């Protein structure tokens, strides 16, 4: 299964370390491949360094693509993570 959506990053500091860490953890726990697409570049969220190197700031539109059995729920969780805030210690379920 494959699910995708374009989202505008709502997080104040963009996709920084903590968000990237959560995206990778969530993708692993959902058993999906999660990709971020920005401009010409597509990176897999399992690489925190690839994700950080995109330096995605707030307000940037990115394509989110999830592939795997739980693609839909992973995509929803990813959007939540991207729009959640910095200091939250509460990971979304999953």
């Amino acid at each position, binding site marked *: 299964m494959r699910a995708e959506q374009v989202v505008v990053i*709502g*997080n*104040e*500091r*963009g996709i*920084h*370390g*903590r968000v*990237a*860490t959560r995206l*990778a*953890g969530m993708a692993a726990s959902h058993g999906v491949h999660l990709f971020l697409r920005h401009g010409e570049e597509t990176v897999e969220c*399992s*690489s*925190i*360094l*690839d994700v*950080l*190197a995109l*330096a995605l*700031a*707030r307000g940037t539109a990115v394509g989110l693509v999830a592939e795997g059995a739980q693609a839909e729920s992973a995509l929803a969780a990813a959007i939540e993570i991207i*729009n*959640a*805030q*910095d*200091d*939250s*210690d*509460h990971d979304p379920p999953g």
Partner: protein
Amino acid sequence: MTHPDKEDNQIPSGRSLQGIGVSPGIVAATVVVLKRQTLRTGWYHLPADHIEKEVDRFAGAIKAAGDELLHLREKLADDLADALSIIDSHLLMLKDRMMVERTMALIRHNNVNAEWALTQALSEIKERFDRIDDPYIRERFADIKHVADRVFDLLSGREHGPLSGEDQPVILVANDFSPEDTLRMQASSVHGFLTEKGGITSHTAIVARSLGLPAVVGIEHATSLLTTGDLIILDGGSGRITLHPEPEELQRVQEGNRQDRLLAEELEQYIHLVSETVDGFTVRLSANIETLGELPAVLRFGSEGIGLFRSEFDYFNGRRPPSEEQLLSTYQQLLATMAPYPVTVRTLDVGGDKFLNRFPGNKAWLDRERNPALGLRSIRFSLYERDLFRSQLRALLRASVHGRLRILLPLISAPVELRQVKAIVAEVLAELAGEGLPVAEDVEIGMMVEVPSAVVMADVFAAEVDFFAIGTNDLIQYSLAIDRGNQYVAHLYEPFHPAVLRMIQQTVEAGHARNIPVSLCGEMAGDPLCAPVLMGMGLDELSMRPAVVPRIKRLLRHCRSEELRRIAQQALQCGDSDQVRDLLARQLPHLYPREFYQG
């Protein structure tokens, strides 16, 4: 900053170095200087049949580094959420293809040793990160380097340094420490550390603060200036390092620490007791904090709420003002963690010039204020930059369903400001209702009493707000016309000035006449000499640094309310501050020998 020749090992007694204090606490101990060997990047060519072995050796080091992190993670207390998250990101870096696959490819492709290949991979990553404009993301390269450094160590068979091997208390000195190094210092003989690199927002600093481990960073050449065995005093608050301290100074620090430990042990038993006098008169003892990271300390020391949450941190932590969602997240956690205790959030309390300079592009004419203390600051700034204020109010009100919220308005000097704020709050409430966003019904709105006009008009204001919070630091400054930062007049800054005491009393009476609670959140609240007088004046709540709460609670629990009232009345009748001090010096040790036996 002092900067002697590197060769100069005879640093005179009492000489000091200035760095950045990132985690408060004063310790005296000998230093252990850890120097990282730099020969690790040696290159050697591998015969073809050794290549897969080299890849395996590298994979083994990666695995060992990961196991170490997992092991460290398991041992961590749940309340070290920041540290957990940092370790998780380091675990991901250890698995990252840019680090692992790239290094393996380089080993295979160039027939080189793992150290050399990893160095290459790292410089490729650095090149990518150097191109990033965002300083917050660019700064994460420091984390990548910490992770890689551990792999280098494991490749060369190096164990962890003497992070926990010493018996005597030590202060560690190094070019830099990783957050994990810092975690390993916990519960060891390491009593503090200092580094050449780093800043207040580095992950290492964050971990040091959450562990309460005194730390100073940013002392250039520290590993050359200091030699293992040097005795120093490290002040993690001011960032000052004193080399070879005079015996008296050393003794003072050591005695202070010994007393602190004894006191801490004794105070432990008070943490979970109710804050009330012998005859059952209660005063809420709450905490002043500015970041969520301080919440574990608040709970640990038994505060019964947050009496002052300084909300500025979110505004100074990024390149833009925070979004409503970011603030919402902060306030939600704050309220939910403290529930059912009340949380008092002071709205943005900054000088406009300072604030707008950080986010340039508009209002350049504000850059210089002739009298910043009397200028566009605090509530005046919020009423000027209304969108910013509305966003904070929206976040606060939306968070209110997660706990007990009290909104505190700083620097109110005239009733018109209060009316303007109330009109905005009403609009925001209507907006939120229209959007279907719930708001708690019991949100209280109060004001800081910190300008003399607010004291004089306290009876009028009391009819308009749900509570008063007296801010003594500003109240003293404004009523005595003293700038504490000015060395020529700082001695006139006097909490026991009868004018200050009378203003506090007047505010309490005006509040109580309208049945609204009155709290006090300034340094006076946590001072054992001031607190009895304040309690005797009838303050309902004293808000102070979290760590001071047990001490003030012990004092309170040995008091009788009529004694406190009598002392307060006598203090109010004194003609000058010396008389107040004499009075307290005579009476308090007599009444509460446990608190004042040290004189």
